């Protein structure tokens, strides 16, 4: 019985020294490795999250930049369009004014020509009519009146 107890104790000592301790150490090592792995995973997850957030932020920034650029381009295009339209309107107005001036000048020219022609005709008719109306006696009377009104000029012969 004693021998059995001693054997058991010896076995227990041996088991503890050569099996339990290394096994426990192996378990501890494993647990430590697992802890480290978990920590690494957590670290990677954190890094991934940071990267993901950064990616989202970059996408957002990019989208905002695109929107700004689009807005700016749209504004510039609109401004250019308005400027072109304004210039076209100005040119059209200038053309219209020039044409009106030409029309007015032509009209005035034609009016003056008609007026001159009318005056010539009226003058010719008047001269013709007076030539027929003014007789010898009236011509004589006119000469008398004209001579009376002659300016007094002193000429030496």
């Amino acid at each position: 019985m004693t021998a059995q107890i001693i054997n058991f104790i010896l076995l227990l000592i041996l088991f503890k020294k050569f099996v339990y301790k290394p096994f426990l150490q192996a378990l501890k090592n494993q647990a430590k490795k697992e802890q480290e792995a978990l920590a690494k995973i957590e670290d990677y997850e954190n890094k991934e999250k940071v990267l993901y957030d950064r990616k989202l932020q970059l996408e957002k920034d990019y989208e905002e930049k695109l929107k700004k650029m689009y807005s700016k381009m749209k504004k510039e295009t609109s401004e250019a369009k308005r400027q072109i339209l304004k210039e076209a309107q100005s040119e059209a107005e200038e053309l219209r004014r020039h044409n009106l001036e030409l029309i007015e000048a032509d009209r005035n020219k034609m009016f003056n020509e008609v007026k001159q022609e009318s005056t010539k005709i009226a003058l010719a008719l008047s001269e013709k009519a007076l030539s027929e109306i003014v007789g010898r006696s009236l011509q004589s009377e006119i000469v008398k009146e004209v001579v009376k009104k002659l300016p007094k000029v002193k000429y030496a012969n």
Partner: protein
Amino acid sequence: MPTKTLTIISTYQLSEAEIKTILTSLGLQKSATLLVDNQIDKGIIAGIVIKYNDYYLDLSLKNKLREIVGNLS
């Protein structure tokens, strides 16, 4: 021998009296050196036109009519 000419344009031959009055108005006298040339031009309608040296006076009805029309236009 006349050295100067007084030209009077009229629609009919002026009488001596009319010519004398014109000469008097111009301070001229009939003389051998002055030739009075009375030209007939019915185109002036009535009145007279006087030319003497550089003196020119248009007192014709035609000229008056042209002045009036010129002023109107």
